[in-house]
């Protein structure tokens, strides 16, 4: 967003932190799968990247004194693309985990939490017991499925109720379609999508967030061992957090609750230690 | 009075713009051996194919054993028969092709057994026995399990004849049945055909074997350019042809 980015000032000290190759090129190549509102998606022209992460990248780039150029690529190609050095970073609301940190490095910059989406009047409430025995939907390849099978379903079994019947779909819109056509009773998705999913749905939707749902940490993925870049990105992230740009972006997208106040590198592994 | 086995009235046939048959009139009596001779392209094969409706007749009528072939008559209207009724008519007419056309995925024996079992629904064991003896009759008793491509041209044609005979047809059509056979074996096959004739089988034979025609045929027709030029007993046609064209043709080949 021009209005926000314009106010960001470049810090040459941070530029100096970047790997020489990137500094020389003046460009950080970023990969994303621009089919995920509100993190990353395309504007009406189907060319211009948008989403809160795009605004974040623009601000971060300006702060670091380079351009961060995104490319949209199907999810399967993200990690091999970073590993092969084709892309310097990948960013697509990717959540951090100890397992993933073994393969790549994370610069953690935001939080995420899951929400339960359901059709109005379906009888499900914030009490997780009301979910038991129902059919759930979620997008495949995300952590939402684990939320259902590792947290919600075991909770139901613990309570002596029927577990949740889980179904996965390969895109967010297919998941929503399943909810609208009554194929599933509720779906688990990122809570941050609420605004968008509500606007896009042809039927009124409700969102509930039961207490037992966890909070995740999301971050920027870089090649394992590329500490120079990771540290530079982290310094930049801290800088745009400090100067208030980050808050401004999240305010624009109505997402203040997921701001991570203490960004860091590989926070999951560090937390485990 | 029995109807003639084959009776053609003004049979015409056109391929696109090419008029191949220009009004054929012919009668083949029951038990007769009828030979068709004539130059290449004169329409002999085409006429033979019309007799069992492999080619649809464009004009005129064709009857076999009194029945219209391929049509049902009501008043002045001709209703085309349903395919399965035509199939029933064809099952009673055996045909041996110029180019064998053996089923290439079946052994000699399977070729012979196929139609009696699957069309006439006769018991397989009985058919098999008959088929073996038929194959022996044409000199192939030792090759019954060979596939067509393992047989020489002559051997293939003999299987084809056995296959047609296995249906016990009331009429046999032969399209140059011996043209791919060795001279040595032609005799054997003609013997089989002679025996068939004696047993009362009616046969229409397109052939270049003038000696066979002269000896066995009851009637010989000479075709040229889609017309029957002359039709009479072999003794007449071969010794004393009425038409100039016939004389020319015979002069060149005899």
């Amino acid at each position, binding site marked *: 967003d021009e209005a926000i980015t314009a106010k960001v000032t470049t810090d040459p000290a941070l530029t100096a932190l970047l790997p020489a190759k990137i500094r020389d090129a003046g460009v950080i190549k970023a990969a994303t799968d621009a089919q995920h509102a509100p993190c990353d998606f395309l504007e009406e022209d189907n060319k211009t990247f948008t989403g809160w992460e795009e605004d974040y990248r623009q601000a971060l780039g300006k702060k670091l004194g380079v351009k961060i150029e995104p490319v949209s690529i199907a999810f399967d190609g993200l990690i091999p693309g970073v590993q092969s050095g084709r892309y310097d970073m990948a960013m697509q609301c990717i959540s951090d985990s100890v397992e993933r940190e073994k*393969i790549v490095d994370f610069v953690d910059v935001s939080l995420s939490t899951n929400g339960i989406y359901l059709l109005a009047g379906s009888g499900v409430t914030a009490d997780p017991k009301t979910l038991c025995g129902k059919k759930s939907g979620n997008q495949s390849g995300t952590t939402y499925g684990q939320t259902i099978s590792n947290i919600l379903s075991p909770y139901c079994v613990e309570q002596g109720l029927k577990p949740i019947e889980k179904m996965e779909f*390969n895109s967010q819109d297919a998941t929503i379609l399943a909810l609208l*056509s009554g194929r599933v009773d509720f779906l688990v998705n990122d809570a941050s999508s609420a605004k968008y999913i509500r606007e896009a749905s042809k039927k009124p939707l409700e969102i509930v967030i039961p207490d037992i749902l966890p909070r995740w940490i999301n971050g920027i993925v870089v090649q394992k061992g590329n500490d120079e870049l990771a540290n530079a990105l982290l310094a930049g992230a801290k800088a745009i957090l400090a100067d208030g740009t980050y808050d401004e972006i999240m305010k624009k997208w109505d997402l203040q609750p997921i701001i991570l106040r203490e960004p860091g590198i590989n926070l999951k592994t560090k937390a485990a230690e | 009075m029995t109807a003639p086995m084959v009776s053609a009235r003004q049979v015409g046939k056109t391929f696109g713009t090419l008029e191949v048959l220009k009004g054929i009139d012919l009668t083949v009596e029951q038990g007769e051996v009828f030979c068709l001779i004539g130059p290449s392209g004169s329409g002999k094969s085409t006429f033979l194919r019309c007799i069992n409706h492999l080619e649809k007749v464009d004009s005129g009528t064709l009857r076999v054993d009194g029945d219209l072939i391929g049509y049902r008559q009501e008043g002045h209207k001709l209703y085309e028969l349903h*395919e399965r009724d035509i199939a029933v008519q064809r099952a009673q007419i055996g045909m041996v*092709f110029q180019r064998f056309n053996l089923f290439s995925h079946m052994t000699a024996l399977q070729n012979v057994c196929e139609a009696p079992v699957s069309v006439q629904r006769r018991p397989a064991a009985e058919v098999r026995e008959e088929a073996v003896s038929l194959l022996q009759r044409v000199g192939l008793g030792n090759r019954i399990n060979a596939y*067509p491509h393992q047989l020489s041209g002559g051997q293939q044609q003999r299987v084809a004849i056995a296959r047609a005979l296995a*249906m016990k047809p009331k009429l046999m059509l032969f399209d140059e049945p011996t043209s791919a056979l060795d001279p040595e074996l032609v005799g054997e096959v003609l013997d089989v055909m002679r025996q068939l004739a004696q047993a009362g089988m009616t046969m229409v034979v397109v052939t270049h074997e003038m000696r066979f025609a002269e000896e066995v045929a009851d009637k010989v027709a000479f075709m040229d350019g889609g017309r029957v030029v002359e039709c009479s007993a072999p003794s007449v046609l071969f010794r004393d042809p009425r038409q100039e064209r016939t004389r020319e043709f015979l002069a060149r080949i005899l």
Partner: protein
Amino acid sequence: MVIPAQRMTDRIGMALMCIVGLGIVAELIRNPNFEWGVVFSYLFEPAVLWGMGLTLWLTIASMAIGLVLGVIFAVMRMSARTWLRVPALLYLWLFRGTPLLVQLIFWYNLAFLYPDLRIGLPFGGATLYEGSVNDLITPYSAALLGLALNEGAYMAEIVRSGIMSVDHGQQDAGRALGMTRRKVLLRVVLPQALRIIIPPTGNQTIGMLKTTSLVSVIALYDLLYAVQTIASRTFQTIPMLIVASLWYLVLTSILSVIQSRIEAHFNAKSSGAH
């Protein structure tokens, strides 16, 4: 003593083949990026094996139905009757012309377009069945419906090309023996067409192994989806894709062996064998 031609060329060729072959094998083993350790640790993961089971099951079932549909529509397409030919052409056009992904989503979400199904006698007659389409169309039936109908359209063209390859004299012979068109087709033409149909059908079957992965869009977990799920958790994309590839190769090998057996069987009979 007879010395075959091109003995030199043959020897150089053989040597080249062996060197290149060994080079590739050595490279595969040596390059650490393939991470064989990870590959083998996930190779027999139950989720992967389950996925493979589904892949195999869907492939076999949809190819079987597809082949039957293919024969029916090939014959219809070659028919002289307009009312048989036109629907066949439309079927081919529609099912080959739209992405399978779309077809699967369509069948699966039929409920979105038609929430309730009512099967009844026409012109306001009695209702025979009434219920939710979602109850009728499970993910499995939607997958099978989608895959088989799609495959049928492709198989129809393959069967047609096979039928065209059979010498027309074969049909003459069959019909002269009193067989109906149907019997000629089943007993004479198709058995001979099979030889020509088998290789492209092998292609389709092997392609189908991979195509089934589209069913993940309707919540079924095939082989590829299983490894993708693991990869999206662990980010070991390349080793996990190798896991899937190895299994696909195993399945492809089995299918190829079956195919060459069948081909050998037909070639033994057929004149085309040289």
